[in-house]
């Protein structure tokens, strides 16, 4: 339960970092550099984190069932 919250926080954090890097840092063209390859990296990271978040929610359901069996 806690871990899924951490992962969601990481996801939001990643979005904020990406936004900050593009908007404020000394190199505003980071996402535009090397033919915009970092956009591809951001997309792959998003898909990976999305699937991980889903798996944690699945784990939560399994945990609930386990607790019910114990009672």
């Amino acid at each position: 339960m806690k871990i899924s919250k951490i992962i969601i926080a990481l996801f939001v954090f990643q979005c904020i970092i990406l936004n900050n890097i593009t908007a404020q840092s000394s190199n505003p063209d980071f996402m535009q550099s090397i033919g915009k390859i970092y956009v591809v990296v951001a997309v792959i990271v998003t898909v990976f984190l999305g699937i991980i978040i889903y798996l944690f929610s699945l784990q939560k359901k399994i945990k609930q069932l386990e607790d019910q069996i114990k009672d």
Partner: protein
Amino acid sequence: MKENWWKIIGIVLMLFALIFGILTPLKPGLPSVFPFNGKAGNPLTVDIQGYNTHFDEAKEQRVWLKLGDYTLGSSKLEATSSNLLRATFLTPAMLPSKDSVVVFSLVTDNEIDGASVMPSAIFVKQSVIDSAGAAQVWPQNSLDNLHQQAGIMFPYRNVLGETIRNLYYHVSLWFAMFIILAVSIFYSIRYLNKGNMLDDHRSNALVSVGVLFGLLGCATGSIWAKHTWGTWWTTDVKLNMTAIFMLIYLAYFVLRGSFQDEIKRARLASVYNIFAFASIIPLLFVIPRLVDSLHPGNGGNPGFGGEDLDNTMRIAFYPAIIGMTLIGLWIADLRYRLAVLADKVLDRI
């Protein structure tokens, strides 16, 4: 291990799409040219910016201004680096067109990079309009002795650049989502026919993975749009229709959650699922094609078809679709098995 073969295939295909999709280089291209305007009759010197090009190593570098069949070769070429080329054109005072401002394409060719084209690259203004006279002066050349680029490379497109690789990680998500939702429809119909509770569990698990892929597709599309269209979300028809259809599917979970009675819930959810899937077809496949849209594959913007989706991209694109689908089916399978287990255990207690 025997029942895991399709999961392994899914992982291998996805790994292949990741590795091949990232490591294959892009073809050389021409991102920009400066200045992009000039006057007919004056010498025109432009700096051509290249991407993945080898201007300084090439021995047979050639550059043309092109308008239809009329081509004008450069009189002087100077490569300052592998990606920067300065070309000078001696334009005649009359241009082979009846317009006062004529838009030329820029064509470069050398033996290492092959030929690259930048459409609508340079605007040339003419003060005297005499297209018949210009036709005599301007050389005609169909440019059929260009070099071919050898090797496996993805096409270069302006604005897109390297993000053309997102085809394997964004578009394949949507394809996988359609396949997974279509399979869930199959189980919904089978539930309504036979009344087997297991089919309802299967259909529910598949819809939840389908919606996950849809949400991820929206998120990744949004990131891609930010760096190519310039904004996270536009009022584009395709995007808004996607938002509507995501809401329709989110209502599916609300509907399921609002019933205590299992049979009632399963029946209504199955019927709703069929109607929700039926709504995808007009929302995502019909309406966006009827109006103008920024999104590739829609009205006035064929995008990743024909030349854009060339055969080297298909090598990674189709495995990515199949791999994504199989991984989605795997996750749905885990969810389904959990639901069945919960049913069995809780009934016994």
